């Protein structure tokens, strides 16, 4: 028997600050994501209110630009990414039959850096103005010559920190899926959600460093006076567009692939049928990821890259339709011949399919460069990407949340409210964004803070605003549902949907902190379903009951992130002129940056010097728990 190390176990707030348990980190991600999603949502409503009628003056032009910038940035980086990570954390170790992720410490670090990056970005609202150059921050508009507040500094530094968190989260999941799978779970037996998360993590690994560099270049221009985008000194603004979109286009696939995975889990469960064409789904996912890196310049057709580049990027972009089409038909034929149950989770999953197809077909239309000369930067584009990101990704996330909520929290969300959520959200969504296609075609360009009357824009904009509020009602219903459900007692079965197919449904809801008392033996795709069909109630264990090694909780990831946060603030204000001599002293001499870095690297040093031996849960304890349950 391995010797047990004593370990300090925390309770209350300290438990959450020091946790390295992937299930708790999932909940943290969900809370943070929900918070930022709320910010982004309020910003969206303000945008729609401003555009409700022509020549409206609810917000000023400058504020409007700050709103659109923060809405886009928040939703992409801080709203949906963490909810994706919440689902990945909550589900993937369970789906692959693992007790934990490969790097529990790094997992916690990823969350805290993400959170502090997000907080930093949002502090801009109360610290002198939010970024105002659009979420794409095109230079030269985003350089210090044209954007004179610290807004864009908050953008570069905040995203840098949040992006770092995402990157290390991605590495963690790649390693987890490669090394931590239970015996018998070959790659081609992995559940689809695990597969798409795996590919998404790989894309994060190869896409995020590009934006890291982009943000470094932009902040060097702004803070150190470098000349990357400064035309008069030889810089090149188009370079920013390339770097941004080399990251930015894979990013949208990073977002949508996990949603594909969710749909591929929810539909088979509620159709009581295995996923149709599993191997072609895997192949299509990989192909989409690969092509996703080859198409960035389709965001730049009007930049003037020349006909050869435009033609190549047009064709490459259109090709993505093929693997995506494969997925759509596979989902439809999964339901074909099945026994479909219309639970809230499945409503969102089913609603996803046609909605996403609509976003997909406009995507192919946009891929045709000469047509894109007209579509580009109009409301047609706004409609398109909201169809894929809201109609696709957010529908997928709602489906996933309703589906895995009992596994995460031990309580099923109220089905009636869930269905109301769906209908409000779906109808509101189509009302908001369907009309925007036409607004774009009729000549309304995007990112305008208001518009003249008599352009036939008025009615459609009003409709769009009304739709946005219906969506807001849907979201509020969901929140209400969460709170109401939280008040109910725990205690759902291992497999509350009764047709669960994958390993997470073989263990209690919520799972104990070690997940699996004994690592299961996987005998095929849909491992749990296979055992059920063979008449077994439980998975066959792959190991005898033994002592379980657990990583120790630690506050270091939190402290490291605080250090990065302080260093980021210090960097931003390093050349600021303060009225207060003390502030000038500590900021202008880089003392704040140094303090922050010392905290971060000091924590790293501590982590390296003092080995984490972890602690053990002994078989006797496991038995006891078994008796209690």
């Amino acid at each position, binding site marked *: 028997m391995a010797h047990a190390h004593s370990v300090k176990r925390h309770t209350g707030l300290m438990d959450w600050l020091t946790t390295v348990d992937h299930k708790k980190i999932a909940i943290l991600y969900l809370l943070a994501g929900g918070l930022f999603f709320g910010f982004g949502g309020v910003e969206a409503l303000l945008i729609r209110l401003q555009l409700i009628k022509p020549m409206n003056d609810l917000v000023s032009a400058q504020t409007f630009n700050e709103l659109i910038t923060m809405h886009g940035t928040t939703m992409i980086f801080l709203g949906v990414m963490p909810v994706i990570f919440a689902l990945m954390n909550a589900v993937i170790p369970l789906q692959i039959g693992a007790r934990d992720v490969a790097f529990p410490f*790094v997992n916690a670090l990823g969350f805290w850096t993400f959170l502090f990056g997000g907080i930093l970005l949002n502090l801009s609202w109360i610290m002198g103005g939010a970024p105002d150059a659009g979420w794409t921050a095109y230079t030269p508009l985003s350089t210090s010559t044209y954007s004179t507040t610290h807004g864009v500094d908050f953008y570069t530094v905040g995203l840098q920190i949040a992006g770092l968190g995402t990157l290390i989260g991605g590495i963690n999941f790649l*390693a987890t899926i490669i090394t931590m799978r239970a015996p018998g779970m070959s790659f081609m037996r992995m559940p689809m959600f695990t597969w798409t998360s795996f590919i998404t993590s790989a894309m994060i690994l190869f896409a995020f460093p590009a934006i890291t*560099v982009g943000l*470094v270049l932009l902040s060097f221009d702004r803070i150190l*006076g470098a*000349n990357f985008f400064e035309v008069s000194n*030889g810089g090149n603004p188009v370079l920013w567009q390339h*770097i941004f979109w080399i990251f930015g286009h894979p990013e949208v696939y990073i977002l949508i692939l996990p949603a594909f995975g969710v749909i591929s889990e929810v539909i088979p469960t509620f159709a009581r049928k295995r996923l149709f064409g599993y191997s072609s789904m895997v192949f299509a996912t990989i192909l989409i990821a690969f092509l996703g890196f080859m198409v960035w310049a389709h965001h730049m057709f009007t930049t003037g890259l020349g006909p050869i580049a435009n033609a190549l990027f047009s064709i490459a972009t259109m090709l993505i339709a093929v693997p995506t089409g494969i997925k759509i038909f596979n989902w439809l034929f999964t339901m074909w011949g099945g026994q479909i149950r219309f639970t809230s989770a499945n409503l969102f999953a089913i609603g996803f399919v046609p909605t996403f197809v609509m976003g997909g077909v406009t995507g192919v239309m946009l891929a045709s460069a000469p047509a894109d000369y007209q579509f580009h930067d109009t409301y047609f584009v706004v409609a398109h990407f909201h169809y894929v990101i809201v109609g696709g990704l957010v529908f997928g996330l709602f489906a996933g949340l309703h589906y895995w909520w009992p596994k995460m929290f031990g309580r099923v969300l109220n089905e009636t409210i869930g269905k109301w959520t769906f209908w409000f959200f779906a109808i509101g969504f189509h009302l908001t964004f369907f009309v925007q296609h036409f607004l774009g075609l009729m000549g309304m360009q995007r990112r305008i803070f208001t518009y003249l009357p008599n352009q036939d824009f008025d009615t459609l904009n009003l409709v769009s605003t009304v739709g946005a509020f219906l969506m807001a009602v849907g979201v509020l219903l969901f929140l209400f549902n969460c709170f109401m459900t939280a008040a109910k007692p725990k205690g759902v079965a291992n497999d509350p949907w009764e047709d669960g197919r994958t390993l997470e449904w073989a263990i209690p809801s919520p799972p104990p902190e070690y997940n699996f008392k004994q690592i299961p033996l996987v005998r095929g795709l849909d491992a749990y379903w296979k055992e059920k069909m063979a008449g077994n109630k439980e998975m066959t264990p792959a190991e005898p009951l033994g002592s379980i090694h657990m990583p120790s909780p630690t506050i270091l990831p939190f402290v490291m992130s605080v250090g990065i946060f302080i260093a980021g603030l210090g960097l931003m204000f390093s050349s600021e002129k303060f009225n207060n001599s003390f502030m000038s002293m500590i900021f202008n001499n880089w003392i704040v940056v140094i303090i922050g870095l010392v905290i971060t690297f000091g924590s790293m040093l501590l982590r390296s*010097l003092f080995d984490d031996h972890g602690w053990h849960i002994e078989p006797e304890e496991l038995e006891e728990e078994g008796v209690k349950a």
Partner: protein
Amino acid sequence: MTSAHAESVNGSLPHEPEKATLEGRNKVLGFWLFLGGESVLFGTLFATFLALRNQTNDGPTAHELFSLPTTAAATLILLVSSLTSVFAVQAMHRHKAAALRLWLIITVILGLGFLGLEVYEFHEYVTAEKFGMTTSAFSSAFYTLVGFHGAHVAFGVCWIGILIGQLYKKGLTVVTAPKVYVSAMYWHFIDVVWVFIFSVVYLLGKVG
């Protein structure tokens, strides 16, 4: 998972102690992945440099600026340090803790030598040639790319330095071995990046 500490206590190290435990294997794999991301990072920096390397704006050009003997010396130092870190890992595989520490110390010294040369080079550029971060797009791209690499070297020197200390204190175990191995991977990586910098920045700047 359970065997991690038992073996270090027994003192019987396997041939490749860095891969003896799941934690160790995870660390090596995770680090490979990290280096994949680092490659994209440097790739983007190289692309930026290539796009801007002729935008010298009235400031010094690459041809006027660079002195190949200095950078060749720096290259040689870094290449040799890569070799010494190979020797270190070999010593580790033979479980020779003293030789391991010695080779690591030599690696760190060579790394410091490289950094010294780089600091000297930058200092010359800024003071003698009036070639600073803000001079031109070329200068910004140069300092960012080469500076990023230099920062990586500096981090590596600190990291390996701390590892040497740990080796003295804790000895060679299945916990310290993966750290040594991973730091060697890192060191090779920044060495490879330097080879690219030497060719793309310095040689191309002198010739092209």
